[in-house]
């Protein structure tokens, strides 16, 4: 049937999407504080007092505009995690991210929501829900969530 090889064809496709986006005012302030002061800022709802991190302009429960920024510090607890064994393409770089690595939800002290980030420990097998975690910041910060390298387990 075919003059060139078999009767089944392969389709190959490389779709590359390089794009810029506006982070908006709230995320811009959040990233500015991260970059300049290594502070992780949440924002409080004046009605229900919930603190959102990452920040959002309005409370999703009360629909109030959020205005009160709160420095949440750099420590929290591990709320959930996974150890990734598949080399996903990193959307920030387009390159494969080396495996294995931990990825999890960190509940910063005082926050009502969880922040997603890389999580690590002296041994990834030691990761456990409830562990105390501390943010490790990059020396050269550019104003993005990658200014935090990962959250490191505090092991006694």
């Amino acid at each position: 049937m075919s003059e060139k090889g078999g009767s089944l064809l392969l389709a190959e496709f490389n779709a590359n999407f390089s794009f810029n986006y506006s982070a908006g005012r709230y995320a811009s302030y959040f990233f500015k504080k991260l970059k300049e002061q290594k502070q992780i800022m949440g924002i409080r709802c004046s009605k229900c007092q919930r603190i959102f991190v990452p920040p959002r302009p309005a409370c999703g429960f009360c629909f109030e505009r959020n205005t009160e920024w709160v420095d949440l510090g750099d420590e929290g607890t591990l709320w959930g995690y996974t150890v990734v064994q598949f080399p996903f393409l990193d959307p920030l770089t387009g390159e494969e991210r080396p495996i294995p690595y931990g990825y999890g939800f960190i509940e910063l002290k005082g926050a009502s929501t969880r922040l997603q980030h890389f999580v690590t420990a002296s041994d990834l097998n030691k990761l456990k829900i409830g562990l105390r975690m501390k943010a490790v910041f990059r020396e050269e910060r550019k104003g993005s969530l990658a200014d935090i390298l990962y959250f490191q387990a505090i092991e006694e």
Partner: protein
Amino acid sequence: MENWLEGLEPIVGHQDIKVPYRYSMGATTSKFFIEMRDHKKILGLKCPKCQVVFVPPRSICGRCFSAMEEWVQVSDIGTLQTFTVVHYPSPVQPVPPPFIYGIIQLDGADTGLAHLIGEADFGRVHVGMRLQAVFKEERVGNMLDILYFKPI
């Protein structure tokens, strides 16, 4: 304005999402492209129950769910059913803008085939116009073995 906004520089984020992939076209689509590549033939599949000829072919009739096995050759000439002029550049498009995408119902087929329209005066392209496939010299076995459809 709240004071935290004073002097706040809006941040522009950047991402490079890459999506490389490969997949088997399957028996039906492979035959379609192999005949196009090796013989410049455009084939469709005919439904044994409702007699509809699908181009591009599919293994199951989408109207009555019958399995289709009867291959029929259709013409490389057809009628433009609808079209759009693309002005937006995108890395996933096969050619730079501006260009025209059309859906062409080939003579002998009952469905439309999406493809590029070339050698056409943009102002004169219209629904119902007759078009003919222009095949590439070097064909590899994919939809772009047809370079585009040109007005006749």
